[in-house]
């Protein structure tokens, strides 16, 4: 049948296809684009020229200092105010005398001046006769002297009661500031302040010094996802064989509960799984935490492995196995010598699926590893997410890491597209 299409419809169709491709590819474009730029300068909000430095950086081939990344100015702008404060606080807290000097010079100077000005004002307005003005004012701001009483008397006629009270309060404060008790407590406060500033300084320096441990995250992710997918595969081959070939009591109820898990989410069992680990003390050691995490990944990937392998095993004719069994093979031997070699494409597909579920997993990794801060065990998802939330979030390196972690998966997928897409539709993929 020959179909004629108008050029307009054709154009619309091509436009639609292009639009869809654009919508799909735009995030990939930015991922690659930003990964090829040096890191952004927070002050300029622009990127410099194209470079592969981000890639060399995440593989540890080069290690540029933070000065190279952010520029001296920004480093200094970040660190210098803190250093200055620390310097000042150190000088101040060296001894009680130095603190008293500080209180006198810095804190009281202004207040005393204010008091003197007020007294000066009062003298001018009320016309008190003073022989030595300077001396009179000095004495008038200390409570309990003759001069003080004179000034206070005169004040009441000039100022409101409220202002007078303010004046006396301020005078009390100045007077009591230099007692030993208040000096001691002030010194304690200043010392605590010094400590917090020093911690802040150490944090800035430490964060700067720690490079981005992308390779460690990559290795951890490979170990966790790879091991759990392997265990899941072995368990699933045995289970799927039983489901598809053997008749035994309770088969359908086991199958149903597996399907049930397949639709179940991790969110629902997060609290109890965490509590179980805490009660058993598993999370106190890195090894226990790692094994527990792998087992949780196994249970997450098991249902889909069972389901897909079971479907595949049913397509292998039983007669081949039967012939082998008649020739003297046991059932177990038949699985290893016939079923597994025949279903190799499906087994590889299932392994890749199981691997990808572990590779993408965030919830449990963050619950088990993040809480105790086993930073050495961080997987890519939590490692990168933690890095993106740090003060030094650096888009270029983050995107380079994204590209590197995506490429192997995309290559594997392109090579095995036929098997993998049929796996999707064979019953969907658990997420």
């Amino acid at each position, binding site marked *: 049948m020959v179909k004629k299409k108008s050029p307009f419809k054709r154009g619309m169709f091509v436009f639609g296809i292009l639009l869809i491709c654009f919508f799909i590819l735009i995030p990939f474009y930015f991922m690659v684009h930003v990964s090829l730029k040096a890191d952004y300068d927070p002050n300029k909000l622009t990127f410099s020229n194209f470079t592969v430095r981000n890639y060399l950086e995440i593989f540890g081939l080069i290690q540029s200092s933070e000065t190279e990344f952010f520029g001296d100015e920004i480093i200094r702008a970040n660190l210098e105010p803190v250093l200055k404060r620390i310097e000042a606080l150190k000088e101040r807290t060296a001894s009680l005398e130095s603190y008293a000097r500080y209180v006198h010079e810095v804190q009281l100077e202004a207040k005393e001046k204010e008091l003197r000005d007020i007294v000066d004002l009062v003298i001018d307005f009320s016309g008190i006769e003073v022989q030595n003005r300077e001396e009179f004012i000095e004495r008038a701001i200390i409570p309990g002297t003759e001069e003080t009483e004179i000034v206070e008397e005169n004040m009441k006629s000039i100022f409101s009661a409220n202002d007078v009270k303010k004046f006396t309060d301020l005078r009390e404060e100045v007077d009591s500031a230099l007692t030993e008790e208040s000096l001691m407590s002030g010194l304690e406060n200043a010392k605590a302040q010094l400590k917090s500033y020093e911690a802040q300084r150490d944090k800035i320096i430490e964060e700067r010094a720690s490079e981005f441990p992308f390779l460690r995250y990559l290795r951890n992710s490979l170990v966790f996802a790879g091991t759990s997918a392997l265990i899941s595969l072995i368990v699933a081959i045995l289970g799927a064989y039983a489901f598809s070939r053997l008749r035994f009591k309770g088969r359908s109820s086991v199958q149903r509960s597996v399907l049930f898990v397949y639709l179940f989410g991790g969110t629902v*069992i997060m*609290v109890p799984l965490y509590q179980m680990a805490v009660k058993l003390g598993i999370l106190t050691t890195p090894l226990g935490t790692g094994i527990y995490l792998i087992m949780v990944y196994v249970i997450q990937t098991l249902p889909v492995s069972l389901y897909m392998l079971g479907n595949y095993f049913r397509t292998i004719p039983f007669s081949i196995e039967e012939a082998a069994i008649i020739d003297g093979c046991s059932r177990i031997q038949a699985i290893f010598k016939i079923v597994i070699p025949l279903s190799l494409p499906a087994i590889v597909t299932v392994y890749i699926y199981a691997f990808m579920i572990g590779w993408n997993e965030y919830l449990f990794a963050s619950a088990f590893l993040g809480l105790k801060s086993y930073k050495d065990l961080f997987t890519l998802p939590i490692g990168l997410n933690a890095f993106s939330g740090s003060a030094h979030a650096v888009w270029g390196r983050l995107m380079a890491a994204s590209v590197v972690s995506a490429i192997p998966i995309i290559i594997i997928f392109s090579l095995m597209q036929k098997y993998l897409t049929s796996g999707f539709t064979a019953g969907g993929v658990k997420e």
Partner: protein
Amino acid sequence: MQRAASSMLKKENSLGWKLVSPTVILLMILILYPVGYNIYISFFDYGITSSTFVGLENYVRVFKDSAFWKSFFITVGFTLMTVIGSILLGLVVALMLNKEFKGRAIVRTIVLLPYITPLISIVFSWKYIFDPSYGPFMQLFSQTLGWVSPQLDLLNNSNNAFLVASVFNIWRNFPFVYLMLLSRLQSIPDDYYEAAEIDGATPWKRFTNITLPELYFVMGAVALMRGIWNFYKFDEVYLISKRAGTLPIFIYERVIGTTSPEYGVAAAIATILMVIMLFLITAYVKKVLKW
């Protein structure tokens, strides 16, 4: 002879159980027991050191908590939007890619990219696009076109963060819908369309009278499956924005992201979530799988 057959059956029975025993043991320890334990915890005021039985108090607290209801409706909205969005987009793409044209093989590969790329690889790119200070989205719509206010923060505002999460979820998951629908479309015999064309049916008539009824069943199945998955979707939402506020994040923030974890309350919410999901799953099993 009969004894031989019955011993064969017995052997098969025991071998079957031997082979599924690892599966069953793992299921018992890491799924069934935790689900029961979760319900148990939900009746306790569960602290780090001690726990006291409080009956239904956790549930009462949850139902009286307006934050819970806000989170609940955000979750429902998120689920509805993502299910409808990904099905519509998946349907359109499947219909388009079911037609022959030059370069279809490449486009079919490209369409799958969002679904197969690891989540962690692509999520930062999305965050970058919507970043309030230097993201290309804000650059285009705020600085160049001036359509939106420069103060708009799409990622960190708890009122609209779930919208970006929905767009991301649709983008990521429509290829799944597309694949399911495409494989169904390919199995519709060409004869149907030819017969309809001879009868003079318009393309729209052919679509509504042949294609849609054929797709109806698989679309329902996909909608339920996506609904179930998206209802408790955690990582895709959380990694885009911590403030998207869906129920799984609500639970997470009460257990992991806090210094004073409320295990009892979190367990109660998880139980509520589970009951809702049980309804959806039962519907799925009854309508779609027809056991």
